[in-house]
């Protein structure tokens, strides 16, 4: 065999050996460490309602009822089997159209002036699965949810406060309200008042 053929064979054998280390042993080790150190996170940070897994606290859920907080619009309709942004350009007519449609929908749903709607309630997130909304967005939805659930604005407001992730260590990120855990808390509050 000439030098080139030998190189290719060496390369193939090298690739197979390193695949065993980097492709098999390494992820298996990380899996083991994950299950040992932080099993809840490694398995998807599941939230439970009445002891049953009811989704991941990190993922948005599709909402249809009046009694829940809506997450941000999603390019994948909150289907976690996929994930995608809209990928629409900032000045593209279809983006402006989508935002106008969302604006009308939200204004009707929340009974607010279209101009007052926070922008995160009108725009699709980067993943399509963003569970978080801004504080302003949560406050906008507060009266509707309080009315539909019959829990009263003070109680719902308290639940919003409990499910707000403030900036980590005071400066990382920004305050955001997790709609998934908030909705789970609402459900809990309604079933066990």
């Amino acid at each position, binding site marked *: 065999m000439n030098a080139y053929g030998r190189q290719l064979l060496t390369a193939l054998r090298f690739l197979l050996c390193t695949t065993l280390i*980097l492709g098999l042993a*390494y992820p298996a080790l990380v899996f083991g460490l994950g299950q040992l150190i932080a099993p809840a*996170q490694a398995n998807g940070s599941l939230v439970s309602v009445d002891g049953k897994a009811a989704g*991941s606290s990190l993922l948005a859920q599709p909402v249809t009822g009046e009694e829940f907080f809506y997450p941000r619009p999603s390019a994948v309709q909150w289907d976690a089997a996929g*994930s995608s942004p809209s990928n*629409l350009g900032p000045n593209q007519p279809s983006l402006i159209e989508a935002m106008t449609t969302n604006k009308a929908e939200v204004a009707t749903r929340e009974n607010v002036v279209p101009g007052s709607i926070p922008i995160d309630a009108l725009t699709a997130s980067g*993943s399509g699965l963003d569970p978080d909304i801004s504080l302003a967005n949560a406050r906008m939805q507060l009266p509707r949810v309080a009315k539909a659930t019959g829990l009263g604005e003070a109680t719902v407001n308290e639940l919003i406060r409990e499910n707000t*992730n403030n900036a980590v*260590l005071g400066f990382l990120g920004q305050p*955001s309200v997790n709609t998934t855990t908030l909705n789970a808390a609402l459900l809990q509050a309604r079933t066990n008042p």
Partner: protein
Amino acid sequence: MELHAFALTTQLVILIVTLGALHQPMGKYLAATFSSHKHLAVERGLYKLSGVEPRADQHWKVYLRSLVAFSLVSIVALIAFQLLQGVLPFNQGLGSVDPWVAMNTAISFVTNTNWQTYAPETTLGFGVQMLGLAVQNFLSAAVGLAVVVALIRGLVRSQTSNLGNFWVDLTRGALRVLLPISIIGAVVLIITGVVQNWGGTDIHTLVTGAQQTVPGGPVASQEVIKLLGTNGGGYFNANSAHPFENPNALSNLFEVFLILLIPFSLPAMYGRMVGDKRQGYTLLTVMSAFWLISTALMGWALAAFAGTGTSVGEGLEQRFGANGTALFATATTLTSTGAVNAAHDSLPPLAGGLAMVNMMLGEVAPGGVGSGLYGLLVLSVVAVFIGGLMVGRTPEMLGKKVGAGQMKLVAVYILVTPTLVLLGTAITVSIPALAAAAPAQGPHGFSEVLYAFTSAANNNGSAFGGITSSGPALATMLALAMFFGRFLPIALVLALAGSFAKQRKIPNTAGTLATHGPLFAVLLGGIVLILTALTYFPALALGPAAEGLLK
């Protein structure tokens, strides 16, 4: 969306302090790793099983041939892996990948680009992701390290054409540098919320009553090397915007840190290997200056975006806000990473344009693992040459003459990427059937094409995601841009290293232009800027600049 200058500054300070504390120890470790004559037991076993003679000192041509052989075998193996997915284990019921997509993806991951023309969730199972793509995440980054180490050896050695052993350098980069950091990093990521398991969970009744499958997989182990190796290929389609890849602001900052860790440590390795730490500090200064200025500009461009308070706009994730997005978008495009935590396509024109400029700078600030430093060293040769012309002396780089032979290699190196970018863009936009792949109207459609070729030829991998690149024509053109954008520069760098190694070292004299200190840093920074501006300004004017002005 408000820019909290204080919050952005604080995060930058944290990065500067941690990277500043780590770059010298890391550089020391890297230099020792690539200079050591000892082999670990596992490495000896690996060499034996693959038939490598680790003591062989390779001529630069043999070094290059080994590198090319390894990359070609990797590409073929990865294509075969994807085509046979349906009959191989761990496929999650997913079948054979479309051949054009498989070809594009294989070249993309082997060239450290990680352009993704497929949606991972519906295309690839654990098997291909873990045993194919993630392995290339390690190895393609280790190839970059090997090349820069070979170039430095060329500058240090004299009267030889040998640059070391490719297989040994590749092994050490993967097993001694990338693997240990990845294990620690993966655990940190899991603690913040990144998943690592062997399957999704079907939830029949969600909180809201609907149904959903919570996805799963070996994500953390792939996520960490995706960033550490400046690869960028996401386990999920949404990449680091996906909550399971990047769950909160803390993981976001840690991911930016992972992207920057090795590229910012390489100048320290360089300084030690050439026996003059000042050389390393000067390059580090140039890299840092570009990074800081670019991050500040990106922060400003995003803050000027529509929105009020802490409410975010199209394509952004609420938990990161403007600061976290600006930090990530800058780090990912100034290196060859290309992971994204927001939809770059939806960024305001100025921010999207900045992301392009970052890549067009040649990804040297701090650049990809290995590729950033060898890129900046080649530009240093240009700076030395121009400086030499100004003072009227034969230019020298660390005691090695920069003559006609060297400058030919450098000139070709500088032309490769712009040629691929501009030619690819021009062909695509002038053929209507191809241009249709970018659905946006007007300058934004042009930007989508320009971004795609800039990203491919610079081996970045991020995208203006509106473009559809899975068709045969565009998949092939982008694959060619990635392939030649990776291997032509590498071949030229190794040839340059060989020509430096052959020379005798000339002692420094009073008239030698020093390649350290503020004067050289300014000269080098100026050359990086001027080369980029002269090459790409017309294209940028047609894309993001026109779009920004239209509004």
